[in-house]
Each structure stands twice: as structure tokens, then as C-alpha cells.
């Protein structure tokens, strides 16, 4: 055969779609139908190499069930351990929900963009989360706490449908003590709830922000984020200072499958954390 004809060497193809083996280390129930799964790669080298930034996600895989994009919710400074706070919503997440410590799970990642923590040193931070939207913000909070003096005021506005749906409630006191002003609300209270009642954007009326130096980071249902943006803009916080984390159907996480497109952006690559100024023409468009 002539050398003029190329032949592809298919040995050792690097396939970004191949999951890597990992083991469940711990399962911690967080709220009704929501648990945090701490996962570590089986291969020690891979475990040592893996790093993620706050806001990024992994693809979690179970044979026969499928794969699902789950935000990292653990401390990015904790080497070797990947935390995923999972709500049992579909067939894959329900299969993950049946896992116990020691069980095997497939992991690939981390993927996606990160919260702008490095660019915002010295700024005031307004973190606004709804429901499980606090999960991708938790690594940001833990990262901020690890160098708390590097930022100005830090506020957390958080809410869920009911008190039983609130995540990480056991940590709020420590966050408050270490310098984060935590405000919590629920849409629907029960008889034991002594806190605020109402939707998350209403918490804006309990705090004052300096629009010249405040940066907003928000994650939650899109309808909530729309009103968070509305309240932020009403307080003259510039569009460029608002960052949102978005969710879309995702099959590959590497820009091949086309499912997560949001206008010009792939949520898996340019997102999930997006600057509001960049996506304003598309955000909130009906059925977009």
C-alpha cells in the first residue's frame, strides 16, 4: 500500500465520552429527596490530578441507567473528593439515589465555566439561590470563606419551597459566624418555621447593596433568576456584574450533542455560569 494513503491509528483514542471509575465514599441526606454523594476516583493518580473550580459540574454515569450532569457542591480545596448534591428527579438520579458507600459510579469532568471569584476580590458579593440552586454555589461560599478577608460584604439570600426543602441548613450558623450575612426564606411555611416567608427575590427588600461594588451570583429556577436580575437592575447593579448559572438538557458535556444550546452558547462549555450582559437578548425569551 502506498504511503500516499493515510491510515488512522486507533490505538488509545482519547474519548471524552468515556466515564472513569469512582467509588461512593459517603452519602449524606440533605433534604427531602436530596442527598450529597461524596465520590473519589479509584485510580489514585486520577484522584490526585483532579481539580475543579466553583460552579463546574461532573457527568455521573450508571450502566444501563445513563448519565446526568450534576454540579460539584463540595469544597474545591478538599483534594481527591468530589461532592454532588443530587435531587432524585429522573431515572438516572433515582438510580444514583440507591447507591451506598463502596458502590461504583462513572465520573467524567469537571466541565463548564466557573463563578468569577478571582476577578471579584475586594468586591461585595450578593449570592442568591433557590432550592437545589444552592448546590453549585456552595463551593463558591466555601472558597470565599477560605479567604474571607479578600472580599467586602458577602450576603447570601436563600429560599426553598418549604423548610424541608432547604439545603445545608446545618452550615448556615457557621457561615454567618465566619462573615456571611445569611437570609433565608420559604415559599410555604410549616408550624415550626419561625423565619421569613415569601419568594427569594423578596429578600432583596431586607438588605442594602452598594451597586458600585456589588457582584451578583445566582442559581435557581429560571423564573426566580429573572426576578433576581430585575431586583438587581432596579438597585442599579450593572448587567456586567450579574452572573447566573443555567440548566439545560445535556448528553455529552463537551459540545457535541447539541442539546444544551442557549442561543450562541453551549451551557456545557461557555456555561453553566454566564454573565447576564452576554445573554440578555435571549434570557427570558419564551420557549427559547
Amino acid at each position, binding site marked *: *500500500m*502506498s504511503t*500516499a*494513503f*493515510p*491510515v*488512522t491509528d*486507533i490505538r488509545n*483514542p*482519547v*474519548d*471524552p*465520552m*468515556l*466515564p472513569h*471509575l469512582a467509588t461512593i465514599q459517603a452519602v449524606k441526606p440533605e433534604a427531602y429527596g436530596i442527598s450529597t454523594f461524596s465520590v473519589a476516583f*479509584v485510580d489514585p493518580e486520577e484522584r490526585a490530578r483532579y481539580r475543579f473550580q466553583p460552579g463546574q459540574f461532573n457527568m455521573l454515569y450508571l*450502566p*444501563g*441507567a*445513563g*448519565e446526568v450532569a450534576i454540579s460539584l457542591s463540595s469544597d474545591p480545596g478538599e483534594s481527591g473528593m468530589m461532592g454532588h448534591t443530587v*435531587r432524585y*428527579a*429522573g431515572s438516572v438520579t433515582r438510580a444514583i439515589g440507591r447507591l451506598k458507600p*463502596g*458502590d*461504583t459510579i*462513572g465520573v467524567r469532568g469537571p466541565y463548564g465555566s466557573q463563578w468569577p471569584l478571582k476577578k471579584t476580590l475586594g468586591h461585595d458579593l450578593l449570592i442568591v439561590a433557590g432550592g437545589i440552586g444552592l448546590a453549585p454555589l456552595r463551593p463558591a461560599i466555601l472558597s470565599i470563606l477560605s479567604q474571607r478577608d479578600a472580599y467586602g460584604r458577602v450576603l447570601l439570600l436563600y429560599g426553598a419551597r418549604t423548610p424541608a426543602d432547604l439545603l445545608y441548613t446545618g452550615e448556615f450558623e457557621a457561615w454567618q459566624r465566619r462573615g456571611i450575612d445569611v437570609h433565608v426564606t420559604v415559599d410555604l411555611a410549616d408550624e415550626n418555621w419561625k423565619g421569613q416567608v415569601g419568594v427569594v427575590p423578596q429578600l432583596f427588600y431586607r438588605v442594602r447593596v452598594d451597586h458600585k461594588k456589588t457582584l451578583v451570583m445566582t442559581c435557581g429556577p429560571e423564573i426566580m433568576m429573572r426576578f433576581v436580575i430585575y431586583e438587581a437592575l432596579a438597585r442599579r447593579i450593572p448587567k456586567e456584574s450579574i452572573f447566573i448559572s443555567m*440548566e*439545560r*438538557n445535556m*448528553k*455529552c458535556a*463537551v*459540545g*457535541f*450533542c*447539541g*442539546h444544551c*444550546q442557549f*442561543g*450562541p452558547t*453551549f451551557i456545557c*462549555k461557555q456555561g453553566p455560569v454566564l454573565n447576564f450582559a452576554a445573554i440578555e*437578548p*435571549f434570557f427570558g*425569551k*419564551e*420557549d*427559547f
Partner: protein
Amino acid sequence: MAPNLPRVSASVAMPKASLQVVFDNLRAAGYLLVGPTVREGAIVLEEIERLDDLPLGWTDEQRPGHYRLKRTRDSHYFDYDVGPHSWKQFLHPPRLKLFSVEKNNGSWTIRPPQEPPPRYAFIGVRACDLAAIAIQDRVLMGSEFRDPHYAARREQVFVLAVNCSKANSTCFCASMKTGPKATGGFDLALTELPDVFLAEIGSEAGSEVLRNVPWEAATAFDLGRASRVIQRAERQNGRQMQTDDLPDLLYENLEHPRWDEVATRCLSCANCTLVCPTCFCTTVEDVSDLRGARAERIRVADSCFNRDFSHVYGGNIRPTIRSRYRQWLTHKLASWIDQFGTSGCVGCGRCITWCPVGIEITEEVNAIRAKAAQ
């Protein structure tokens, strides 16, 4: 290089029957030939071996929602335009096993497919489809991530291009600046003349396959005839796409009433995405045996016209045909440019021909432009 082979970028004339020698050379070099052939009333792309497999003496008639084959009086091998198939079915297979998993004692073994993909020689690739392949190259190999399955097929493919000698009412390659002449990305490009093929050598491999072919240097007469053939195809382009105001025209008209209007005609059948040579979207299927000890992940072609394509917990992001047609058109002509630096449309016209209700992408853009938001 052997003295009896033409140099790269030369143009030579060869007897039509000697194309069989090219086929034989390619097969001897280990290639699986795929090319146009007639099946079930259409010209499709399938494995071929002989000149007889080509649609000799056939031409096609394409209009919105209409495709018919007709006999011609000429003995031309390539006197038709692109059919329902495109080369993506070979480079980006619509069904592909990503890996299999076996569970043993709590752990798993993950095995990617071991068998090497076929080495394809594509026979009769038109200029619009060359542009489409270049676009899929950018999508699947041009970013930080690389699809190894696509790359393994793509990197060893042999491309025998054919310049179009006619165009249909659905063609608009000229306005998309992709055709009808193949200008690069091929190993060998043929222009069919009544008596000979004029062959442009695009690579060393393209020269190599002319071994034992009785070629002669192209004369000015041959070159002139060939260029007139291509000019005729360009003149016959049945429509145009105006692109100078894209992508902004579509971005600024996401609430245009035309989206509601087209939704009353569109069946959301996904035909346009299936025949489109650049549409690349996929989903995955997970299958397992009854005990759950063995499983496979299979990547399958998907379409933004499928309802579940945009499913997230709580519902589908794009539940209406209006929103799905808008997604397809704005992706193809607008956001594709932002994502990959190129339009997602090559002007091949397949989506117009194979739309069961004859929706014309060019007309939809014109309608939006006619009453655009200021």
C-alpha cells in the same frame, strides 16, 4: 513520484471508462467505496464497486417537497444533484456504540469499541457537501474536545469530488459561496464532459489513484468546456440566500409572527435535520441485559425537532413547534456562526426537497426580513 503520475494541482483528462481503474486502485489500497446509486426511486449513497453501480443516464428533479428521478438521453454518470443521503452517515454514524460495560464483583470494566472503522473512499462528493464536511470538522474536531469516532473516520477518508453540471430549483450553493465548483478538501475532483472526465489532482493520494489510468494533460478546450459546465450549474441555482444581515436579523426577530405562521405548516417531523449534511445533534441510549451485568452506551442521531430534545426536570424547554423551528433556523443560520465561525447552512437544498410540506428555508428568512423588527 512515478513519472507516469500527474503532479498535485494538475488538471488531466481521462477516458470515462478508466474511472473503473481508479475504483480498483482505491479498493486495492484498502478503501471501501461509497458513492451514488439508484435505490427505491432516489439516488442514495451506498457501498459501490463498479462504474455500473453509478446512476448512469439518470437525472433528478427537485422542488420543495418533491424529488423524482428521470432518464436522460446522455450517458453521464453524475448528471444529478445531491439526494437524501449525505456523507455524515459515514463520518458521524447515526448509531454508534460508545462503549460497553461489564460488572464484576462490584467493579466494572469499560471497553471502547475495538474494531477499526472502515477506510472510506467517497465517490462523487459535491462542493456543498465538501463544505458540510469542513463544517462538521469544526464542530467535532475543532475545539478543545475532539470526537475520536469522527476523527478516526475522517482522517483516513479519500475524497473524490465531482463538480456539479446542473442545479435544481432547490439549490443555493452559489449564494452560500460553497459551490458548485469544488475548490479544496478533495483528493481528486472530476468534471464530467461528454467524452472524458477532467480531473483536478488535489493530493498525493489523488495522483496515486491514477496509476494505470491513460490520462493526458488537459487542453485549453477541455478546461474551457469544464468551466462552462460549472457556470451552467451556477446559473441554474434555483434560489438565493441573502446572508449579509445574518445573524442579527434572526436574533432581533425571535418574536416575529412568521414563527407562528411556519409552525402551522411544520410537522416537526425532523426530516430536515436528518437530510441536512451539517446537523450533528445526538442523544445516547443505554441498554443492559436482564441481569444488569452488561450494558452498552449507544450514540444515536437526534433532532431539535423532537419534543424531548430539550427536556429538563419539570418539562421541555421548547414544547411548541414554533419554538423548535425557531431553534433550528436560528442555530443553522445565526448562532452557528457565533459557535463555530461559519454558517451551518451550505445551500444544498435538501431540507427544502425533503420537507413533506415543502417549507423553504430561504423563503422563511425572506419573510422575516420583509417585516423585520427595527
